[in-house]
């Protein structure tokens, strides 16, 4: 190029200039600071305000954390140790640790049982949550509910084993008779399961001390354990019910559709606390006089109803988001309704609804604290009731509420991060 212009232009550079470092204000930390913290006067003020705010919080809470007392046995002793300096009285957590976790009635020599159940919950949940773990582990996930029931509530192991046996028998019968149609096969499966349960009832009544753990009545459950029990039980029960409700709401049969619509809209229109009032004071009127359902069972019934209505709406969204072609493709393969739902529609619809389902699950887990209003002693109930009202710890607000905030935050934030990760994993390029 330079040749062509050599005559017409006075000077043509024919070598590259060496690269120069950018100006100081446009590189490295200073550039980042300029762009991200001080892009303009308003933002500079905001940044300074934010720094001041953070400084205030850290300066206020750091000595409180570092000076914390972990070994006192009452608030008065705590204050004595602190001698007027700032410091948290975290000994309330160490001293009441078991109460915070298990409530104040669970027999203290049996704490290993809920702990073991919790550890096993992690093992059982892992293959469900992470698809790359070996699929054989799912067998354990399937039997986990029965193990957990036996561990937490105690009693003979025969009861959960028989329940499991009934379900297995029902499934086997269903498989055998599936060729004769979905409805018939379900009926046959149900009948065989009920027969096994009925027969097993005699067996477990006769041999009630086979591998028996000390039975713990439901009203003795409390603390964070109660929140975990209510959360996991209600979410897992409400998933299948929610799916059925969503399918019912999408159905072409007007009567079934309207039953589902009424149920869903009613439940979604009232606050959970009124449903808990129902569980507490009304529900027992609707059962035969001789039945005496535990409060925790009544609460589980109502929370499950509540959660399933919300999950149904989420899944309905997933069903509606599927392109019509999927329904038509399933029909054109000659699949009947049950098959097309099971094999084609639901796997895709559920995948779309995962974020929504997780949102409902997180919300539900948070809502389990509401049971403290009807005088059950979950984590919040324990803090408000037995601990803050005791003479030793009357007035220790920050440490206890901080612990409650932390417990719920860890679980809920963990779940929502997992769901975002899962969403990324499941992303397929749809049209």
């Amino acid at each position: 190029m330079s040749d062509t212009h050599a005559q017409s232009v006075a000077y043509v550079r024919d070598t590259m200039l060496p690269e120069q470092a950018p100006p100081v204000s446009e590189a490295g930390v200073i550039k980042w600071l300029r762009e991200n913290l001080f892009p303009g006067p308003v933002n500079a003020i905001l940044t300074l305000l934010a720094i001041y705010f953070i400084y205030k919080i850290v300066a206020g809470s750091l000595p409180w954390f570092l000076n914390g007392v972990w070994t006192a046995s009452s608030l008065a002793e705590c204050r004595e140790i602190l001698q007027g300096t700032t410091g948290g009285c975290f000994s309330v957590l160490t001293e009441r640790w078991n109460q915070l976790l298990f409530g104040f009635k669970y027999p203290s020599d049996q704490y290993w049982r809920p702990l073991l159940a919790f550890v096993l919950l992690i093992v059982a949940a892992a293959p469900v949550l992470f698809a790359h773990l070996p699929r054989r582990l799912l067998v354990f996930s399937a039997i986990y509910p029965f193990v957990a029931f036996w561990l937490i509530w105690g009693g003979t192991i025969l009861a959960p084993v028989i329940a499991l046996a009934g379900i297995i028998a029902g499934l086997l019968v269903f498989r055998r008779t599936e060729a004769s149609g979905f409805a018939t096969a379900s009926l046959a499966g149900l009948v065989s399961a009920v027969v096994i349960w009925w027969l097993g009832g005699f067996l477990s009544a006769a041999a009630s001390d086979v591998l028996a753990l000390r039975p713990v009545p439901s009203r003795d459950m409390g603390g964070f354990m109660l929140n975990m029990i209510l959360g996991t039980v209600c979410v897992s029960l409400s998933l299948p019910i929610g799916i059925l409700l969503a399918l019912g709401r999408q159905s072409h049969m007007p009567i079934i559709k309207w039953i589902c619509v009424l149920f869903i809209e009613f439940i979604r229109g009232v606050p959970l606390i009124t449903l808990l009032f129902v569980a507490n004071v009304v529900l027992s009127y609707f059962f035969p006089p001789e039945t005496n359902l535990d409060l925790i069972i009544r609460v589980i019934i109502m929370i499950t109803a509540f959660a399933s209505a919300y999950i149904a709406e989420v899944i309905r969204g997933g069903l509606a988001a599927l392109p019509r072609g999927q329904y038509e493709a399933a029909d054109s393969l000659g699949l009947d309704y049950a098959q097309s739902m099971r094999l084609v529609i639901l796997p895709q619809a559920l995948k779309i609804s995962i974020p929504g389902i997780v949102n409902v699950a997180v919300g539900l887990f948070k809502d389990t604290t509401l049971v403290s209003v009807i005088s059950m002693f979950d984590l919040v109930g324990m803090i408000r009731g037995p601990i803050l009202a005791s003479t030793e710890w009357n007035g220790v607000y920050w440490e206890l509420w901080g612990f409650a905030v932390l417990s719920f935050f860890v679980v809920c934030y963990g779940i929502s991060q997992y769901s975002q990760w899962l969403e990324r994993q499941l992303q397929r390029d749809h049209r």
Partner: protein
Amino acid sequence: MATYSDPPAGTFQLSQLINDTRYRSYTFQIIALIALFGAVAYLLSNLAANLQAAGLSFSYGFLGEPAGYDINQSLIDYNSQSTHLRAAMVGVLNTLLVALLGCIMATVIGVVVGVLRLSPNWLIRKLMAVYVEIFRNVPVLIWILIIMAIFVAVLPQPRDFRGEDAEASMLWGMFAFTGRGFYFPMPVFGPGSGVVIAVFVASVAGIFAWRRHARKALFDEGRLLPVFWPSLALFIVPAVLAFFVMGRPVTMEYPELRGFNFQGGIFARNSLISLWFALSIYTAAFIAENVRAGILAISKGQTEAAASLGLRPRRIMNLVILPQALRVIIPPLISQYLNLTKNSSLAIAVGYMDLTGTLGGITLNQTGRAIECVLLLMLFYLTISLAISAVMNAYNNAVKLKER
């Protein structure tokens, strides 16, 4: 389904009820209906038997009886001799009050936080993200209780305001923030204040008329009329003039320390304030996410297109971005309002007397009419949520993209 050839007529078999797609849905529906009626009848018969055994009957007669309990925060006249119905009305109004206040404050905080989450300022962005995550992931009940505890523990008691060198003092001599609650000045309307109010209302109407006129002038004749300063003048000047012309009929009654407590002014109990704050900041975290999602949903091309038309940044926001973003933001916003209203039933945890506290709390416990009370309670919340959904549907239809 309609393309199946008809089976030969006159050979109806019972198995067709379940195997023939023409009859199957009827079979299932009838079975479902029978099961439903059976279940309802079973439950109702149990109910009747249980009520009879307990010597109760289903009646709302108790609503007319005197309630016999006091309510410490009430918008209408109420004393312990009023009826249960009156107590329930107090509860309804209290619920609506905290819901309304909460919705307003939650919207303000939520919009600010949502916008700040998209700010170019890294620190502010992160701070707001931390706020949203912390408040979204912890139960609202815990927040209500924490804020109540903070109010009681941190704020001074009325006795701290006493004496020459008091530990606490009132803000501008008007507001007193105590652990028992907040005291505000209360306007007292003397004779002639009706005129002032009427003038004020008329001037607000005048503002709208002027804006309309300016808009019409802009669209029809292309004249750009000033809007902001005339509106401000209309808002302030006539009302102030009327106020002085009528001889200052509206006065303020300030809270005053008498004895061990404040007298006069408007008193908002700590239960109301903490419930209001807690519900607002909890719901605001959700609203912030909605606002952020709504703004992000508008593609950058819209901003660029508007800029290339020569619009200034504020007009781009007002005329192009906001109208589109609001379409995305408002439906979830309204459902957050609904959630807030339902969550306000947690008032019972801090002793604020909303409907759950009066009808579902004390009235229920005093009269033992559990079924009637809970039924009324549910009906009230159901009505509110149906009303809100109706508003939402109307809005959705109004802003629906009008496609050809």
